[in-house]
Each structure stands twice: as C-alpha cells, then as structure tokens.
C-alpha cells in the first residue's frame, strides 16, 4: 500500500518534470520577449506549431528520422521569426498593450487558417520512432524513454540558457536590455539587434519544443490557441523576463497538471486554471517578477 503510493509519486514526479521541461523549452522565449520589449506576443504558440509541422513534413515527405528534424525545426522557425520581428512586431513595441494583443491574435487567426490550408484541418498523424516508445524498467518503476528524452534535452537546453545568459558577453547584453532598455542603449548596446537575435533563439526553441511535444500535445491547426493558456501561465506565474521564474513556473505547471490527471482525472484542467488564478491574485507580477 505505502509502496504503491510511493510508486505513484515517483511516476508523477518523472512525468511531471518531463512535461514541465517541455513547457519550459516552448515558453522561455516568450518570457524573455515580454521582459525585454514589454511586448505581449500571444502568437508565440504559432512558432511552436510551425516547428511541429516542420517536423512532421520532414518525417513524412522526406523520410528524415525524428531526432534529425529537431534542429531543422529550430532553424526554420528561428529564421521565420526574424522576418516577423523585423517587418511587423518592430513597429508595435511602443504601442498600447491592447494593440499588441490584437495584432498577435490576428496573426494567430491567420496562422490557424494557413496551417489548415497547407496541412489540412485534421490532427497530424505522428508516430515516435520505436526506441522512444519503449519503457525502461528499473526495479518496479517504469520510465518512458520519451520522457527521458524530454528530461535530458530540457536539462541541456536549460543549462545552455543559464550559461549563455550568465557567462557570455551576449548574455550580459541581454540582461542589460531586460533590466533597463534605455540605459543599455546609452552604453552603446544595439538593443534592436540583441533583441532580434534573442527573439529568433526564443522562437527557435518554441519550434523545437513544438516538434518535441507532438507526442504529448498533439498537433493540429488550433494548436496556438489551445496551448496559449499554457504559455501565458508559465510567463505570468514566473513573471516576465526571468528565466528562473519561467523554469519554476513550467515545472510547477507540469507537475500540477500531471498530478491532477493522475489523482483527480475528473476535474480536468480545472486545477491548473485555479492555481494560476490564485497565484495571479496573490502576486500579480508573478512569483519571480519585479513590480
């Protein structure tokens, strides 16, 4: 009895952290964007969706192996996002919040219809390679290799992000721009260029996460709106502009979603929404956010 409870907890921890890592990879870019430019980019999920479609298209039409499509998803989405940033978003950084919301909602709508046109409105057929559908048995615990992949990749990316932000010159420039855009401009940092590159990396990560997450989240044209709430929860609970906050929020969300599905499946998404609402009421700027 006690052991089976323990077993359940280990299972929830493993799956929850793996899911949290996936959410972190997908939404960390949004957190940085919001922190640096105060730009409410609700269309962040479009990048994740695009990454997913790049992955399935390469697998189905060109016969690429799943793991090889991941870097491709990153690159394609990062390049596409640069165009969007340069030609559309850049005009809106000084606009009102509402206008930013509306613009990005418009982009979501267009992306949904475009995806339905190109790839069809139905969910994409997707099968993980055999080596990722297996379960590893350790004693009486069983872990999916897919979950392990999420954990390992998520950890590598997290470490890379922290190293990049804390230990490199470019990371210092990003932090400076997030802290105070005007002062950063004053000391000669080309904030626009820093931002374009950061935006591209963040979007690329979303694309990578979208490809990585097809197995867990599914993929159809309504993806950007269906998972919008998840991105917003991660960003809002974490607080805009902090990678630490985004990581903590993503893990909290992954764990509470998984635990909810495991222990009280009949409540559905109710728990995570309620948790989000409570956190927002308690700390409107997020757990790690600065007012």
């Amino acid at each position, binding site marked *: 009895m006690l052991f089976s409870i323990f077993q359940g907890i280990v299972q929830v921890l493993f799956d929850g952290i793996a899911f949290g890592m996936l959410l972190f990879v997908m939404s960390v870019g949004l957190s940085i964007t*919001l922190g640096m430019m105060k730009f*409410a980019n609700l269309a962040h999920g479009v990048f994740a969706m695009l990454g997913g479609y790049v992955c399935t298209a390469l697998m189905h039409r060109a016969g690429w192996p799943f793991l090889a499509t991941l870097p491709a998803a990153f690159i394609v989405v990062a390049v596409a996002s640069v165009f969007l940033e340069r030609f*559309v978003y850049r*005009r*809106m950084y000084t*606009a009102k*919040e*509402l*206008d930013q*919301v*509306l*613009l990005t*909602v*418009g*982009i*979501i*709508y*267009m*992306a*949904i*219809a*475009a995806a*339905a*046109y190109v790839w069809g*409105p139905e969910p994409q057929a997707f099968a993980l390679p055999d080596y990722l559908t297996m379960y590893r048995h350790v004693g009486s615990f069983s872990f999916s290799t897919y979950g392990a992949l999420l954990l390992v990749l998520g950890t590598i990316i997290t470490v890379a992000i922290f190293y990049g932000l804390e230990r490199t010159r470019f990371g210092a420039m990003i932090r400076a721009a997030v802290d105070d855009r005007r002062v950063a401009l004053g000391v000669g940092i080309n904030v626009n260029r820093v931002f374009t590159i950061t935006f591209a990396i963040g979007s690329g990560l979303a694309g990578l996460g979208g490809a990585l997450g097809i197995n867990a989240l599914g993929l159809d044209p309504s993806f950007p*709106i269906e998972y919008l*709430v998840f991105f*917003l*929860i991660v*960003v*809002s609970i974490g607080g*805009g502009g902090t990678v630490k906050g985004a990581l903590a929020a993503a893990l909290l969300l992954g764990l509470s979603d998984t635990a909810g599905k495991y222990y009280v499946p*009949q*409540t*559905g*998404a*109710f728990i995570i*929404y*309620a948790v*989000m*609402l409570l956190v*927002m*009421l308690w700390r*409107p*700027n997020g757990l790690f956010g600065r007012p």
Partner: protein
Amino acid sequence: MTADTPTAETVGANAAAVADFRARARWRWYEPLFWLGAIAWYFLFPTYLPLGTQILCAALFALSLDLILGYGGIVSLGHTTFFGIGAYTAGLLAKHGWGEPLTCLLAGGVTAAIAGWVCSFVIVRVQGVALLLVTLGINLVLYEAANKAYTITGGADGLQGIVFWKLFGVFDYDIYGRVAYVYTLGVTFLLFLVARRIVHSPFGLALKGMRENWKRMPALGAALRRHGALIFVLSAALAGLSGALLAESVQFVALDSLGVQRSVDVLTMLIVGGTGVLYGSFVGATVYMVVRDQLADLNPAYWYFWIGLILVVIVLFTRNGLVGAVSDLADWIGRKRGGGSAS
C-alpha cells in the same frame, strides 16, 4: 454645499460645465439613421432575421465590453464570463419551469451583475498583462466548471430542452424569428439608451480620464477603484442581459457561450468597429457577423484568415477601427475643403 455662497465665477463655471455635458449628450444626425436601418432590416431581409437577432445580441455584448475597455480602459480577455452567466441563468430558469422572457432576461442581468461585483474586487487591483490573465483565468475556471457540471449545465452538449413562454403572454416565438427580432431590437435600444446616458454623464467623463491616465486621475480626486468597480458591474450586467437575450432567441445555451473564443470574438468585433464611440460595437458586430456568414458559406475552414488579416490591418493602419477610419476620412475631406476656402 449650502455653506458656500456661489460667486459669479463658480456659477459661470457650473453653467459652462452643464452646457458642455449637454453638448456631449446631444443626438447626432446619424444616430436615428442607424436605428431606422435596424428597423428596415426587418422588412428588407425577412429571411435573415435570426442573423439580425444574433447581430443585435453580439452588438450589445460588444457594447458592454466597450463600457469597460473603450471608456474605462480595462482590458478583459474573459468578458464572456458574464455573457455565459446571463445565458445560463435565463436558460436554467426556463428549463426548470419559469419561462417568462422578461423576468428571465432580468434575472440573467442581475446574476451577471452580482458575479461582476464579486470579480470587481480583484479587477480594480491589477493592470496590464496581469489583468489579461486574471480575466482569462476567471473565464477558464468557470468554463471548466460548466463543462464538468453536466448534470446541471448539460456539459459540452449545451443546455437543451429550454422553453420560453409567450412574450407578454401574447406573442409566441415564431420559426421565422420575427418576434425574437423585434423583442431583441426593442431591448437593445433601451439598453443602448442606458449606456449612452452612462457615458455622457460626469461619471462617464471620469472613466475617460481613467482610460487616458490612471496615474493622474487620483490627483484630481477621482475615486479610481470605485469608478472602475462600478463600470465593471454595469458592464457585467449588460453582458449578462445580452447573453440572456441570445438564449431566449435561440432557445438553447451552448457551452461555448462561456468559451475563450467568444471573448476573443467580441474583442475583435469591438476593435473592428472602434472603441469608445458607442456605435463602434454595432458596426463591428454587423461587419463581423455578416462577413462570417458570407465567408463561412464560401469556405468555412479558412474564414479566420480574413478576420485575422482585418485585425492586423486595423491595428497597423487605423487609429480606431472602422468608425475611427471613417471619421478620420471625414476630417481629412473637411480639412481639404475648409483649408481651400480659408486661405
């Protein structure tokens, strides 16, 4: 008040203020045209009366959002919370034996107002992105609750088996939607008058100040939180009334009346029309619903592309939706003419 002896100056200032409010509240030449158009719809498009009814309900809903967004500057991503509460209140009453349309309508408005009053304590304390998330969060929690409580709400199947009684005990809801249209138009007009009165009152002016600068208004002595809470409750009531109206005219409440999609839809309508100009919500709702009706016939899967494009174009290139674009155009023509004769 009585202790102060009014000097000539204060009397003059008061008179000027009163004259200013009178001028603001004056009926413009296009306003009767607008309502005549709504009446003409009844005779011109007898086969489109159900669409007309839905447009009116959507316009009323957009108007309720305009009260908080266009006048109060409170952005909500979850305004359909109150629309859904109104619709479910009216629907549940009718399902359980009380189908008198007017009282059901009123009950929908009152319930939504109470819900709005409860939410207002939170709403007035947050701004910016946090406000978006709190409104969205309230909406999502309620949606999931309604989805799971299917013994009461019918869950994803919606609330079925609703029967409303004859209107005033005389007019039965007919299959062509004539009674529903006339009833909805009448109620919409009355509620529009109320909204018009609100935005042209001193209270409405304080709201505009709050929208323009919520940091400076307290310095003028405006009780921001109390104003914000009051307009939020009024807006919630109006949204609830529009939800109840729709429930009565279609005799059904769908779960998506609480869905996030509807919040985004109504925001889109308001933006397409224009915020803070009262008629923006009517123009936006009409354009949105007619375009959807037409485009969905052509190609149902892709009509969101065009709505998205319209949104992007409006945000990037106009100042305040279609109404704003038209008035800018009128200004521009006026300046061309005026400039020519003056110089």
